[in-house]
């Protein structure tokens, strides 16, 4: 069964450094999402992306964050200058359509900021 793949599975970075989290969505999906889950807390929506542009973003997704689909398969989340509070599990998800089809999630990248 097709799945969303994310790399790396774990990223350790010094505070203030830039990180790029990578995702390969399911191949025929058109809608892409990033969520994060701080340890012990809810899964929170960050951003949705369709047709090469951001469709919606949450308050968490400030100017330090950006997303990109650099080629036909990858979908990336960049955090420009990481803070301690960015430590979390970051999940990528994709869906065929918005609302009529479920979002399927990758295994996540655990980001640890030192």
């Amino acid at each position, binding site marked *: 069964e097709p799945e969303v793949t994310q790399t790396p599975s774990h990223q350790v970075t010094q505070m203030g450094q830039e990180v790029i989290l990578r995702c390969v969505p399911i191949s025929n999906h058109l809608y892409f999402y990033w969520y994060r889950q701080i340890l012990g807390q809810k899964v929170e929506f960050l951003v949705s992306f369709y047709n090469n542009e951001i469709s919606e973003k949450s308050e968490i997704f400030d100017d330090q964050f950006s997303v990109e689909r650099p080629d036909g398969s990858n979908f990336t989340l960049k955090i420009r200058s990481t803070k301690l509070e960015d430590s979390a599990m970051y999940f990528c998800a994709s869906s065929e359509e918005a609302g009529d089809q*479920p979002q399927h999630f990758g295994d996540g990248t655990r980001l640890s900021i030192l």
Partner: protein
Amino acid sequence: EDKVVQSPLSLVVHEGDTVTLNCSYEVTNFRSLLWYKQEKKAPTFLFMLTSSGIEKKSGRLSSILDKKELFSILNITATQTGDSAVYLCAVESYGGSQGNLIFGKGTKLSVKP
């Protein structure tokens, strides 16, 4: 503010028991409600519900939505140790051109042999 509330937060049962997990929501512009199972990593999709009163079933799992009372339940019959996981309820709302998912805190289910 949109919110999704799950109960109980944790539950311990023995193999063979039947469990009911609850999810209530307050969301403007409701579109759908989804259930996911989260073991160690990725939330795995279980059900997507959009209409009231129509039960969805998959093996020992079933779920139903009540849009009037704003809640859903997830039932698991004849539980097995492999059902141990966190079960997440999420609601999708219309926002902009596509919905985002609003998650509850999850119910941690532990099934003892």
